[in-house]
């Protein structure tokens, strides 16, 4: 995953939350977005379906859809606008078979 892309400059005084991304355990704080948590632990969010290039989101406000990840077997989520939660199972590749709406 590489060294963290983002730099935290203010901390959350909230309870710790644990979730997994592609099976890897990640600790975060309640209130954090998935994007903030994942890019504080690594340097990209997913690889592009077409050419495998790394992507880490772009607009950070829900408009570009570059930050898509998958939660559980069938939920697609924008990492930049989705808060972390205990026990989330995030995957960066679509759980097969993928249904895109």
């Amino acid at each position, binding site marked *: 995953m590489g060294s963290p892309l983002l*730099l935290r400059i203010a901390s959350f005084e909230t309870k710790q939350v644990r979730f997994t991304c592609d099976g890897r355990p990640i600790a975060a704080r309640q209130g954090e977005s998935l994007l903030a948590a994942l890019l504080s632990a690594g340097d990209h969010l997913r690889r592009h379906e077409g050419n495998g290039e790394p992507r880490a989101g772009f607009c*950070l406000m829900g408009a570009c859809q570059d930050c898509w990840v998958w939660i559980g077997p069938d939920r697609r989520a924008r990492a930049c606008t989705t808060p972390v939660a205990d026990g989330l199972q995030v995957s960066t590749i679509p759980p097969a078979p993928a249904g*895109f709406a």
Partner: protein
Amino acid sequence: MTRIVIVGAGPAGIAAADALSAAPVEVTLIDEAARPGGQLYRSPAPGLKLDMSRLLGSSHGAYAAFHDKAAGLCRRLDYRPGTLVWSIHGGAVHLASASGAAALPYDALILATGATDRIMPAPGWTLPGVFTLGGAQALLKDQGVAIGRRVVFCGSSPLLYLAASQYLRMGVKVAAVIDSTPFAAKLRALPDMARAPATLAAGLRAMAELRLGGVPIHQGARIERFEGEERLAAVQCRAGAGQLVRIACDAAAYGHGLRPEAQLAELAGCELRYDPVQRLHLPVIDGDGRAGERLYIAGDGGHIGGGQAASLSGALAAAALLDDLGLPASDVDRAGSRRSLARLRGFPNGIAAAFRWPREQVVALADDTILCRCENIRVGEVRAALRQPMASPDANRIKAVSRCGMGRCQGRFCGPALAELVGAGHAGELDRLRAQAPIKPLPIALAGEAAP
């Protein structure tokens, strides 16, 4: 009772809600975000110990006053955070939220949907570490994280210096500010800009702060490339004199001003008209925000103008709506607000000149540059589509042939550059991509339920 729906709880939407608060109407205020504030007054997530007064400096007072007012309004109104309006048809707004899909009929509608960054694609702009300028601010305010440890702010926008100074103030290393507009152009625009003295002063303050902080500022430098393998390592720009400058960094905040989020306006039946100064299609509205039958548009979603203009236009739209419905007038000072708004919006030429959209850069882009980041469509593929025999190559046809703009952002980020490419860099009128519902992808679980 008459039902008014307001979409957007930023400065424009909140001002509209406030002006309607004493009227005999039922107001529903909808925002996709979890908290009111919009872009300008975006607030930290609950529990985040972020020093907003340090981040915002002298504008903290306005921020605090906004949130006092918004908190009161949101308690009294039917406020629906976390709710996306994904379409407007049949006299109803169509909603999607964690609790499912719903349609909400309205008697009148105020759209206060704001804006997103206008982007000029450049080689490497899809690398991790390259983010929009607005996004760099949004992440800082909302999550208390900076986009990197050594950040370059680049492009050209009134927000460029503002965002960079906010990062600096929060202790983040600002590697450089690269403004693609030459200083001479800014000087020429000065008399125009002086019509909004507060905005001008804020910009100059931010510049002075950056200089004092030792941040190198390159003006009139063209962004050549975002360089890196798996993530951003440097920004290359070509300085005014022609030499290549390479600035090592791990993140870049990039943008060329703002473009209105006008998709809902279009779906609601508002006409969009090409504006030759901004080179964007803008909703056609009258001075008070009337945009069609029972339809009003306020704030940046109608006309990019900053926070103060957004609030004024929200109040005016609400007042116009009450007039049109024959309801008792609100106590909005119409004449005064119209005067101030006209002053704030009255110098598009100055803004466009001082923060130039570098349209000629599209023509210079190499064929292998990614234009559409959703589908990874390259400039060369769009050029190939343009060479196909076609009665009149309009942007929507080129989109159908090349798939550029068909991706999940619906052309929000490639659209302005695609239009320039189709227009071949000419100064003439541009084409645009049409909006389609759903204006943003819906959660799969809802997509079936919410079929248009």
